[in-house]
């Protein structure tokens, strides 16, 4: 076991979180290896969103410990988590519709010249954006288009590319295929596949619909009642098994009402 520890980029140990009398998380134990894609599944209200907010530094856990790259770590804020390399892409994507693709990708980290004048170096941004999107296999009509013109999948891919460019070590994707058709989600799943092959970044995909993301995940965790109740590599389970599991739990829950 000793040699396995450094390969864990992020671990959550006995994380619990209560808001007043309400217990959102009871006992979360989660590990994420370098370059791994973990699917975090669970019903609404199971504690998924609270867990994401703890992993991104938005909430502090009531008890338990986060271990980042082998060191016990307390995340003070979202920007602190980001400075360590934990990036999240939420559903609002934080893109500016009116602004073109390459300026969006460098928003807040724009290369400039002219010192305090802050004149944008559009040429550099454009070239690097094209290079990065190409490497990630993101196909868009043109990086000069305002992002308002792009489809949901393309916008998601650009938000992911932006996080990857920030040298993210851990990338959290919140429902990346929500409200998307098959072709659109295919676009984003391809990007995830390619990132997985490069192995630089570990990814946690939070999803409600596990059928769509099952194929890209190395491992799936099921969150239920504030704890992780199921943890298995995707090779040793199936969509059918997950579905049966959820359905039987659902039946039991109904029966005890």
């Amino acid at each position: 076991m000793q040699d396995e520890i450094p390969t864990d980029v992020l671990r959550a140990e006995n994380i619990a979180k209560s808001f007043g009398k309400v217990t959102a998380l009871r006992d979360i134990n989660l590990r994420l290896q370098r370059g791994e894609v973990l699917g975090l599944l669970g019903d609404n209200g199971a504690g998924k969103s609270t867990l994401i907010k703890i992993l991104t530094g938005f909430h502090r856990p009531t008890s338990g410990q986060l271990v980042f790259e082998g060191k016990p770590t307390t995340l003070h804020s979202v920007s602190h988590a980001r400075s360590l390399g934990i990036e999240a892409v939420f559903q609002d994507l934080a893109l500016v519709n009116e602004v073109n693709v390459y300026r969006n990708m460098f928003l807040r980290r724009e290369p400039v010249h002219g010192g305090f004048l802050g004149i944008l170096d559009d040429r550099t941004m454009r070239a690097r954006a094209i290079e990065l999107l190409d490497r990630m296999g993101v196909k868009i009509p043109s990086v000069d288009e305002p992002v308002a013109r792009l489809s949901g999948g393309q916008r998601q891919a650009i938000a992911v590319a932006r996080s990857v460019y920030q040298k993210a070590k851990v990338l959290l994707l919140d429902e990346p295929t929500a409200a998307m058709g098959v072709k659109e989600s295919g676009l984003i799943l391809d990007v995830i596949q390619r990132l997985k092959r490069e192995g630089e970044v570990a990814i946690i995909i939070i999803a409600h619909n596990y059928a769509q993301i099952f194929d890209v995940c190395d491992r799936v965790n099921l969150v239920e009642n504030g704890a992780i109740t199921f943890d298995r590599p995707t090779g040793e389970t199936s969509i059918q098994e997950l579905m049966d599991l959820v359905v039987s739990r659902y039946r039991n829950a109904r029966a005890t009402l």
Partner: protein
Amino acid sequence: MSEQDDGRRSATIDGDAHRSASEPRTWQRIVFVVLRWQEISILAAGIALAAYFQYVNGAFLSQANLQNLIQYSGTTAIIAGGEVLVLVCGEVDLSVGMVYALTPFVMYFAAAAGTPYPLALIAGLGAAAIVGLINGLITTLLRVPSFVTTLGMLFAINGFTLTISGGFPVEAQAGQWFTRLFGGSAWSELSWAIAITLVLQFVLKKTRWGLHTVATGGNLVGAAEVGIPVRRIKIGNFILCSILGGLAGIIDAFRIGSVDPLAGGSQIMFQAMAGAVIGGTLLTGGVGTVVGALIGSLVLGILTDGFTLLGVSAYTFDMILGAAILVTMAVNVRLTQMRGGNV
């Protein structure tokens, strides 16, 4: 999202991926440029109006009339430019017309107290900046909507100006070159308006400040999420707008030769706002052009001047102006949809 919608979007992804590197056809590019460059449509409207007025009344394009027209619109355009930046970052400044009246008085009193005129002018602009700072702080820190903040400020500044002036106009007497530079000479207004427009347009479209202004107005939550200091951006633009309002007031004071506590006010503020909006700036934030605001202000000037030459009554004129603004905006919304923005 419907299934059909999805299919259409995917089709364009695939189709355009191949074409992206090659050049689109010439006529497509022309249509694209015209649609993209929103200033063109309002410029065309301005030229058409000018041609019409010249046709109906030969005096329209005379030098005396053009000078009159430009002096009338120049300072409005300066205010409109500042208002564009505030509108683009998602706020509005209703108090700028009152700052226009206040600033020359502060300059006058500073000069009367023995301050040399250049320093007195800076004192006036400093007062304008403080008004902008207060507008920004109340709006961002106390979370009062800027419509309300600057509406309150409108009344407060107006009362203050009337109090310090006692309600009477005064005469600003600076050195000759100074007076000529700030509004005295014939082309001073136009020169200032063009210079300020070009600088502001550059700031808005090519600098980090401008990009962050657009981001703040376009997606406030997202901009804050990526770490843009949205409050600082808003406060800075309020200050800038106020200073420009003050400068416009000083220029007009030197042009007219007297400082009037009742000058400007809501009238010039609404005209500047109309100029900005007609030029293509949205009240919802994120979209705006300073060049458009200059052209928009000139078009308003052309309308006013042309109708005056035709002897149209001021009452009729306001009805025409109101209708013109409504029609322009309806067309603008359509054009924006055609450009593909989701307004």
